[in-house]
């Protein structure tokens, strides 16, 4: 592994922008509950939550500036977790 990256310090401006984006998305989560979406309500909430956690991982947790290997490792973990949840729900949905 040769990719040694210098430490990346994010500017306050950028961090604040991400924070504001998270606040807006939190407001969106609340607002979306007031719209009649039926079964899509859960998907909408999950989609917003995914974007929010993506922002936290990318900027607050620095993943955007880490070597590719770490991103692959993160993806493997998320993929596995999704598989676990998916497999379980597969049973529940068709029971």
């Amino acid at each position: 592994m040769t990719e040694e990256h210098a430490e990346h310090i994010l500017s306050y401006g950028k961090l604040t922008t991400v924070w504001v984006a998270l606040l807006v998305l939190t407001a969106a989560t609340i607002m979306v509950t007031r719209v009649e979406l039926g079964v899509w309500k859960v998907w909408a909430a999950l989609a917003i939550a995914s974007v929010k956690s993506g922002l936290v991982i990318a900027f607050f947790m620095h993943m955007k500036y880490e070597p590719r290997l770490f991103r692959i490792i993160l993806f493997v973990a998320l993929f596995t977790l999704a598989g676990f949840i998916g497999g379980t729900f597969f049973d529940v949905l068709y029971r």
Partner: protein
Amino acid sequence: MAHETAMTEGGFWRDTGRTGIGAWIFSTDHKRIGLMYLYCVLGFFLVGAFLGLLIRLELMAPGPTIMTAQTYNAMFTVHGVVMIFLFIIPGIPASFGNLVLPIQLGARDVAFPRVNLFSWWLYAIGAVIVLISLFTGGGAPDTGWTFYVPFSARTTTNVSLAVFGVFVLGFSSILTGINFITTIHRMRAPGMTWTRIPLFTWSLYATAWVQVLATPIIAITLLLVVTERILGLGLFDPTRGGDPVMYQHMFWIYSHPAVYIMILPGMGVISDIIPVFSRKPIFGYKMIAFSSLAIAAAGSAVWGHHMYTSGMSDLGVLVFSFLTFIVAIPSAIKVFNWVSTMYKGSISLEAPMLFALSFILLFSIGGLSGLILGAAATDIHVHDTHFVVGHFHYVMFGGTGFAFFAAAHYWLPKYFGRRYQEKPAIIGWVFMFIGFNILYFTMQVLGMEGMPRRYYDYLPEFARLNFVATVGSWIMLAGVAIVVWNLWRGLFKGEPFTGNPWGGASLEWSIATPPPTENFEEDPVVTHGPYDFKGAGVP
């Protein structure tokens, strides 16, 4: 200074710092930590084996034999908990993994030596909590090692403390996994490319991923059982909107991949031993390496096959049954490659090789009986019978247990600088092998005839075979006693063991015996593969 220490006689046994027990329990040397794990897991193996012996004694004849029904329930639960969580999961990875992995990579230690020590402490603390749970509160848990709800949420025995102990043990496993993954990625010596990593270390890499990704699930699941017991939330109680099958999903999401935490390092041991004692490079190196990853990946998607009769959806049964069959492919790849490695090799039947060969046979029987259980149509007939007990003992003991002893006979003389006697080792192996098959093959037949597992009493028609199985357990444990006694005596008092008598080509055989504290006097530059005997200059 470090080099001088390294070259003194006694290698890592002569620590320059602390003395007494502090030199062990506060040491960050991967070899000392590995040995501490080894002593612990071996001790728990003997405890678990003794409990198994008592279970078999109880089942020797119908009706009450030596214990009450409640004691019997506690006995098989504790046998399972001790064997699974205290012996077999840390068994090979934490003991031999710690001893061998950094040296095979050409590193001076693991990536995080202090985390490594912390991991051992967590193991020790978790083990103590589990042991305390047996003798306090409402008595030893009687749920079976799977802690299934609703019974585990209601029983008055000491389930909460026991599962908390297992929770702590889980963190030990996660930390070891993280340490090994990082070590393999970051600490390889120059020239140690991915295709020069010995297959034992490759198997530990796949294992470590399972440890890191699956273990948190059991931690959460067991905490939920505790909250259920203390707060009565009704998470798994259908009368309050809960789902008991959800517990089984969450439990097996970890516990099925956990059997690959148990077996993969064993497969790695075999992959390292077979070529050395066949004097031939391994056949299909890349396929064996990648099949470890394939087993880890596919094995993480098959947990549902424990639940065919639990009320899972029919479609779920179908899908999990199909996925289960996929795991057979990488497993078979390994078996065929081991056999192909031996083809036309110059095979020498010494103790490590005998254990390795019996692994191949016993694991194959276990694996094939696993397909009978993986196929939903046949599983429904033999579910919860002794067939299942026979199957997993074939895989776990015939597989991992025999691999553990293969590793002990192969690597331990290197670390102790002394060796065991060959003849008692072989006699012990013969007893183990014969007793094992009498015990567990009989169990499989009993299961086919319909004898349920975990039952205290049984119908008279099962009496004869149960008697035979119990006699088998005596023969097998006689073998275990001979093997352990011979190892213990040999490693502390036996003939000196020097150099590379078996002609291994991986890095651990290129350094002094016992290994120096820092493993390598100078950082090695790797110029050949782990099974390139010509390249390593060994005959």
